[in-house]
C-alpha cells in the first residue's frame, strides 16, 4: 500500500460496532469489566483508550514500526522516552537540538544523573569521538532546528548498533512521508505531532515509535507509569490531521521551493539554509536518506532592522512559535525556539540575531512572495 493510502487506511479507521468511518472519541476514563478473572483489553484510559490506540497504530504503520505511543506533547514524548535511561547513562546529542529538548537534558535529566555531550552531528567522527563506555543513547535531529544541518543517519545508526547504543531521531521536520529513520537503522523515532503530523496549529501532541518489541515494552511501561498520554479529543484531531499529511506536505514543499528561489534573488537575504539547495553542505546525504527537502528553512538577513521589519510586517505569515501548520509561520529562533539556549552558546552555534525561520503553509506561493516583498520594502 502506498503512503497516501496508508494515511487514510492505517490503524483502526472504522468503528467495528457501528461501521462509522473513524473511531469514536472515547471521552471516558474507565471501562466496565465483564469478568473477575479476565479483564478486557481496556480497563483504564491512561493505559489504553481506543481513540488513542487508533492513532498509535496509524503512526506506527506509517513509520514502518511495530509500536507507536502518543503523548501529551512533543516534550512529553521526548521526556518519557528519555526515562528509559538510568542514572550514570550518557547521551550524545546534536548541538543545535531544539531548545526545549536542550532544556530538559541540561536542567532536568542532568539532575537525574543522565549526562549529555553536545556535538556537531554533521560529523560522524565527532559523534563517534564523543562516545564513552557509559554512552547508552545518541539523540539526533536531521535536518536540525533552526540551522537545517544534516546528519548521516545510516552511518550513525551503524556505529551505534555495533556498540549497543540506542539511536533516537526527532523526525518532526520530515514526518514519515519524507524520512523514515527506522528503515535507516535507527531505533526510536520521536515527534512533536503538533507540527506537520497534525498540521493545523491546533493540537499539542507527541509520539515515540519503535520497531523492536523489547524497546516498545520499555517505553510502554513509562507511558503507562508516568502517564503523559494524549487525550481522546486530541487523538481524534491528530488522526484527522494526519489524513491530509501527504497532500499538505507536497503543497508546502512545492511552495517552499518557490519561495526559496525568490529569496535567493533578494539583496537583503545573505544566506539560506535549506537542504533542497545543491549548495547546502548536507544536500547529498539528505537526498540519500529522505524523499524531499521539507517545508521549513531558515535564512539570514543583512541587518537587524530588516529582520525586525520582516517579522513584524508579514501579514500572511503569522509571527509565532511552532511550525508545520497549514498557515505559514515565521519565527525568530534567537528569542523563540532557542531562547532556552544561553546567548554565547547560541551565537557559537550560528543562531544569529538576523536569522529567521519560515515554516511554509498552504497559502498560494504568489500571495506568500508578495507578502514577504511588502514586509521587506
Amino acid at each position, binding site marked *: 500500500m502506498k503512503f*497516501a493510502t496508508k494515511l487514510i487506511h492505517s490503524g483502526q479507521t472504522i468503528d467495528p460496532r457501528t461501521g462509522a468511518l473513524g473511531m469514536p472519541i472515547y471521552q471516558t476514563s474507565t471501562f466496565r469489566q465483564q469478568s473477575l478473572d479476565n479483564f478486557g483489553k481496556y480497563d483504564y484510559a491512561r493505559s489504553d483508550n481506543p481513540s488513542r490506540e487508533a492513532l498509535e497504530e496509524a503512526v506506527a504503520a506509517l513509520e514502518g514500526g511495530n509500536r507507536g505511543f502518543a503523548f501529551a506533547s512533543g516534550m512529553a514524548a521526548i521526556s518519557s522516552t528519555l526515562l528509559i535511561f538510568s542514572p550514570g547513562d550518557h547521551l550524545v546529542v546534536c548541538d543545535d537540538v531544539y531548545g526545549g529538548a536542550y532544556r530538559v537534558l541540561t536542567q532536568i535529566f542532568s539532575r537525574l544523573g543522565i549526562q549529555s555531550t553536545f556535538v556537531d552531528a554533521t560529523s560522524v567522527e565527532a559523534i563517534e569521538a564523543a562516545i564513552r563506555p557509559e554512552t547508552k543513547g545518541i539523540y539526533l535531529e536531521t535536518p536540525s532546528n533552526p540551522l537545517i544541518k544534516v546528519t548521516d543517519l545510516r552511518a550513525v545508526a551503524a556505529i551505534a548498533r555495533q556498540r549497543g547504543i540506542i539511536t533516537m531521531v526527532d523526525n518532526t521536520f520530515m514526518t514519515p512521508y519524507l524520512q523514515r529513520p527506522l528503515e535507516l537503522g535507527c531505533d526510536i523515532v520521536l515527534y512533536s505531532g503538533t507540527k506537520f503530523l497534525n498540521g493545523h496549529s491546533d493540537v499539542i501532541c507527541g509520539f515515540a515509535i519503535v520497531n523492536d518489541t523489547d524497546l516498545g515494552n520499555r517505553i510502554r511501561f513509562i507511558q503507562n507509569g508516568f502517564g503523559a498520554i494524549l487525550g481522546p479529543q486530541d487523538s481524534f484531531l491528530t488522526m484527522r490531521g494526519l489524513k491530509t499529511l501527504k497532500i499538505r506536505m507536497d503543497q508546502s514543499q512545492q511552495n517552499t521551493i518557490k519561495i526559496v528561489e525568490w529569496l535567493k534573488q533578494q539583496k537583503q537575504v545573505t544566506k539560506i539554509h535549506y537542504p533542497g539547495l545543491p549548495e547546502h553542505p548536507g544536500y547529498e546525504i539528505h537526498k540519500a536518506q529522505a524523499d524531499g527537502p521539507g517545508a521549513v528553512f531558515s535564512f539570514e538577513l543583512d541587518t537587524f532592522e530588516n529582520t525586525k521589519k520582516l517579522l513584524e510586517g508579514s501579514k500572511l505569515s503569522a509571527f509565532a512559535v511552532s511550525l508545520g501548520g497549514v498557515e505559514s509561520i515565521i519565527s525568530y529562533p534567537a528569542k523563540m525556539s532557542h531562547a532556552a539556549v544561553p546567548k554565547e552558546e547560541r551565537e557559537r552555534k550560528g543562531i544569529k540575531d538576523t536569522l529567521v525561520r519560515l515554516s511554509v503553509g498552504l497559502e498560494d506561493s504568489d500571495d506568500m512572495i508578495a507578502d514577504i516583498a511588502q514586509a521587506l520594502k
Partner: protein
Amino acid sequence: MKISTQAVQIGLEWDTRTGALSVPIYQVATFRHPGLGQSTGFDYSRSANPTRQSLEDGIARLDGAARGFAYASGMAAITSLMLLFKSGDHLVVTEDLYGGTCRLFDKILNQYGLTFTYVDTTDLQAVQDAITKNTKAVFMETLTNPLLKFADIPALSVLCKAHNLLLIADNTFLTPYLLRPLDLGADIAVYSASKYLSGHNDTIAGLITAKDPQLAEEVYYKQNGAGAILGPQDSWLVIRGMKTLGVRLDRQQENALKIALWLQKQPRVRKVYYPGLDEHTDKELMERDCRGFGAMVAFEVDQHSLVEQLLLKTRLISFAESLGGVETLMTFPEGQTHADIPPDVRARLGINNVLLRLSIGIEDIDDLIEDLSQAFEGDSK
C-alpha cells in the same frame, strides 16, 4: 487573494487578545453585557457565536458574498432558506436533485403550499417554459447528483433577472475552490458542508452565502428565527477542514479523472459519467466557468449482480452514503441517496439499478484502482 490562501486565513485574525492561530471554540450560550443597552456584538449564541461567525465570514469571503450563514446540516440550510418563500409560491428545480432535497420539497414543504416543477436545468428553454406567474426562484445544483450535469449559470441568471426570480445554486459538489456561483450571477449559494468543505466525513453542517446585503439580512432573519444553527464545535471542525480544501480537491480531481479513464476501459462498465471526460456534454461549459471538474464519478455496469459485488468486495473503498471526504466511498443511488425520487422519474433520469456513484478520496490512485480491479474480478461470470 487566491482561494487556497483565503481558506487558510479563516479565523486567523479573530483572537487579537491572545493571538491564537486557531479561532477559539466558544462553547457558550450567552454573553455578559458591558452595560445597559450595550452589546459586545454577541448576546446569545443562536443569534451570533464568534466561532460560527468566523466560519460564516470565511465562506462569505470564499464565495465573494455579502454574508455567510452556518446551519446544523445541509438540509437545515435549505429548509431555512425556503422560509424566504410563502404559501402559493412556486420554484423551478433541477430534476436530478439530491434525494433529501426532493423529499423536503415534495413531502414536507408542499404541505405548506409551496409548489415545485422539476426540469432539466441544463435546458434553458425547459426552465423558461416552467416559469409561471407564481414562480419566485430557480433552485439548481451546480453539478447535479448523481449524473453530473452542469448548467449554464450566467444564462440562467439572465433569465431569472428578466422574470425577477432568485437564482439559488447548490454548489456542494464543486465548492468555491472550483466554482463561485455568485460571480456568475446566482443570488444565493447553498452547501452541504458535510461534504468537501469539511472534507473528513466527520461533521454534519450546512452553509449559505448571499450576494446582496439586503437579501442576506432576510436570510439572517430566518436563520436566527428558526434557529437551525451550527454549534461551535462543528463550526470549528468545518473551518479546520476548509484549510485543506484546495490540496484535497486537487488530489481528488486528479484521482477522479484517472479512475474515470480506467473505468471506461473495463469490459463490464457500460457508461461512465465524469465531466472531465471529452465525451461529457458539459465539459466545455465547465471549462469556461470552473477551475476543475470535481471528484464525483458515476458509472453503469452491465448487470445488477455486479453492483452488489462491487459494493461488498471493495476493501479500501467503503460502501457508504455521503461524499466529499478524504476516503473514497461508493454508493448505489437508486437504493440510497435517490430512494425518495419516484421510480418513473428515476428511470427517466437514468438512475437505474446498475448505476454506482463514487466519491473519490485522496488515497494513492494505484491502490484505488487495484481495489476496484479485485472487486470487479470477484467473480468470473
